[in-house]
């Protein structure tokens, strides 16, 4: 892996500073409503853009990945936690993949 060390420095360094600087240095509350609203939405928009469409190609079959995501979404809607949702996504994807391989 070329350029591993400089990349690691940027990755770890920027992640740390983004967390620590506001925690340690800035104590003032952000009052601007637009900025607060933007910051409120950004975690969800980032995670959504990371998940789709990328997750569809994370496993061997698009159909298996889609089933896994749907199963995860279903149980997340039912209020199940992180570990369960992540596990059930894998199990569902594995099951579909197994069936597809068996019939192919």
């Amino acid at each position, binding site marked *: 892996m070329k*350029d*591993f060390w400089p*990349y*690691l420095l940027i*990755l*770890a360094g*920027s*992640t*740390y500073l*983004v*967390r*620590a*600087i*506001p*925690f*340690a240095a800035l*104590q003032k*509350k952000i009052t601007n*409503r*637009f*900025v607060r*609203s*933007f*910051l*409120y*939405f*950004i*975690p*969800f*928009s*980032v*995670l*959504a*853009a*990371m998940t*789709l*469409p*990328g*997750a569809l190609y*994370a*496993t061997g079959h698009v159909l*298996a990945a889609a089933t*896994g*995501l749907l199963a*995860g979404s279903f149980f*997340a*809607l039912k*209020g199940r*936690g*992180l*570990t369960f*949702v*992540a*596990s059930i*996504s*894998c199990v569902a*994807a*594995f099951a579909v993949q*197994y069936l597809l*391989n068996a019939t192919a």
Partner: protein
Amino acid sequence: MHSFLRGLRAGVPIGLGYLSVSFSFGIMAVASGFTWWQALLISATTLTSAGQLAGIGVMAVPGQYVSMLISQLTINIRYSFMSLSLAQKTAPSFRGIKRWLLGFFMTDEIFAVASAQEQVHTAFFGGLSVAPYVGWTVGTLLGGLLGNVLPQSVMDALCLAMYGMFVAIIVPRAKGSKAVAIVAAGAAALHGVFYYVPLLKAIPSGIAISLCAIAAAVAGAYFFPLREEQEDAA
């Protein structure tokens, strides 16, 4: 000490979740050409899911330092907001060097648990951080080492764990807030355009994700500005 143990216990479910998710990160990292110790080092120094996933994507091509920085800042800017928010709830003694050290552990789930406290003490936050950190690094190590041992079909399925975690974070909030649902769907749809349309496909994935996420969040802030009573929920 009591406070530390209470935090330690509160962190165990997060640690277990991280163990399974980082296992899939270890597998993905090794599958995309990293060694097991490089994967471990990334997890041990960075401690984040989405950022690391985007990070190994950018690292596949050498020399994209600006792309790396921009995508990391966009993906991780949410931590700044969490840090700001938690900084308003800390005990008076939780300051200075303690904040510089423990700020490292500000993940989505640690923040979620800590912010449910009336007041956050140094010992509690320190205890809370232990199991997630151990889970994240050990899981990555196991994934990186066992990734080659497990059958391809199992590895393929496990790669979905990280995305399953994202689903577990987005879906419950989207259920409670139409605005969150629309913003998340908008970001995903926009990224779909970048993913499939010929010319846009050439844009590095880290930057495409950043652009889509920023555009969706700006639209969200414009069309669904927070009301005062919503702000604490953020």
